[in-house]
């Protein structure tokens, strides 16, 4: 365990040149010198400042930072829901799915109906939709709950449906904006395991935003630390801890402590 923690590398990649080989490859996410400014003139707020990062296909990357560091903005840019003020965002033509902090399920549809709508949007036929819906509900272990409406499900189950709906989009890149932030610790722990299991069976690139350091270390192949106002990449931590991981295991706790130290350092510099 000590060996693993020692092998953690801390690098400052703000100045790292983009790897040309990765450009345009499916499932890769690349941000080059991306800035995002909201508003204009004196009331303008710079949410992101010169953020450059590369996520290779199939990597699970966690973005962490204090509130106001533009984590969610970054995801919106990758999703194409907003446009960068300057810089370049590229997903190499990947299909991108988004999971929000709230489940954002359509309340007039059943759990199965929500999943099926994502399949319908892809143009799948009825027979295939029905079969895929059943499979996806099984994947998130909600077989038997397909007929329930969102309000009849608990918070954790709703997020499972949202995950199934995101998977239904058959995306190469999955963006997750604090998807478990509103759940209790036990439910979250179970969903971490589920997410591990589901990602293990798929070539899925994940960008996972959280403000929970332990969650980031528990889930990520890599943890990227952002500064606050404006958001900048200030550090990256590779997470060489073997899976299966536990959020309460010693290596996770040790690395989380180092990430937290880095965050504190940044915050105290802000204060000073």
């Amino acid at each position, binding site marked *: 365990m000590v060996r693993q923690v020692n092998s953690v590398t801390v690098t400052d990649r703000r100045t790292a040149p983009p790897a040309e080989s990765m450009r345009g490859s499916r499932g890769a996410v690349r941000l080059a010198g991306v800035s995002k400014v909201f508003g204009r003139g004196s009331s303008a707020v710079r949410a992101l400042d010169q953020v450059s990062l590369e996520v290779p296909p199939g990597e699970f990357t966690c973005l962490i930072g204090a509130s106001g560091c533009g984590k969610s903005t970054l995801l919106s840019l990758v999703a194409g829901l907003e446009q960068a003020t300057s810089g370049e965002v590229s997903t190499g033509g990947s299909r991108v799915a988004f999971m929000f902090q709230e489940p*954002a399920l359509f*309340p007039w*549809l059943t759990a199965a109906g929500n999943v099926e*709508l994502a399949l319908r*949007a892809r143009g799948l036929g009825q027979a295939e939709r029905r079969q895929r819906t059943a499979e996806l509900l099984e994947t998130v*272990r909600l077989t038997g709950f397909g007929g329930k*409406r969102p309000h009849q499900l608990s918070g954790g189950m709703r997020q499972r449906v949202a995950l199934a709906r995101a998977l239904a989009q058959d995306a190469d890149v999955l963006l997750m904006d604090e998807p478990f932030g509103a759940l209790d610790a036990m439910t979250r722990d179970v969903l971490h395991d589920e997410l591990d299991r589901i990602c293990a069976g798929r070539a899925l690139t994940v960008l996972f935003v959280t403000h929970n350091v332990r969650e980031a270390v528990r889930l990520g192949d890599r943890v990227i630390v952002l500064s606050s106002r404006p958001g900048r990449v200030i550090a990256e931590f590779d997470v060489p801890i073997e899976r*299966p991981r*536990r959020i309460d295991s010693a290596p996770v706790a040790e690395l989380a402590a180092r990430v937290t130290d880095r965050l504190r350092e940044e915050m105290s510099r802000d204060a000073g």
Partner: protein
Amino acid sequence: MPANTPLPVDKSVPGYVEKLTYLESLEAPSDQGRRRLATRVWGGLWPVALAIVIVLAVWQLIHLSGWKSQIFPGPGAVLSNLWDQLQTGLLWHAIATTATRAVLGFGLSVLIGAVIGALVSRIKPLRAAVGSLITGLQTLPSIAWFPFAIILFGISTTAILFVIILGSAPSVANGLIAGVDYTPPLLLKAGKMMGLRRLSLYRYLILPASLPAFVAGLKQGWAFAWRSLMAGELLVIIANQPSLGVLLSTDQDQSDMASATAIIIVILILGVLVDQLFGLADGAIRRRWGLADAS
């Protein structure tokens, strides 16, 4: 890839996730709309029955006090008058005429209101031009349109329908516009990420999301339509076409207070019945969406 790869984490308890899912399902809100039908009907009926009893009692007391006793009938006289009229063909004929106009007028209002609402919510310049006009029309008492309508269409059913539409369509349009406007932005984001675009975005997201506001608009539109219709039938009296308004007007000419009151009761009951239908639709949507409070 196989969907159900075994859990990579040993949680020591077999079926840990299944158990948690089961526990979560217990925690999830239970169905509240599944109470027995009889209980629900009774729950809805007894306050109405109580209200009717109170009104009748107060009415009877006023009658007993002798206030305007020459012209003001008690509930007994009015109800027996109503009973008698229900045996004649005239009242039923009048109800049929009025109901037909109501269905036709309201139906056209819904059609026109929905088309206008859809266009205004979709086309930005149109909204700037017509948006406030619609609200203006909504606040304008529709009875003010009758001189205009009568000059334009004469003493005819068309004049009545015209005023119904002017009174009711704006509410329908506004209901739809409000529904489209208040489609939750988060759901819009989710829909766009899912790949819903243009028509499919409307069909699968915006229209269903605006359904509750649309139904509220329909309900309000109905109230305006019904009022406009009653005003119209009192002002636009067409010969040989008995309607509830004509019966009322005749009663006024003959100072037949018992009959006039009986007709008012009929109008009230019809209005309430239709309103109840909208209430049912609204309740069904709320239950479906999980917005219903325990009722």
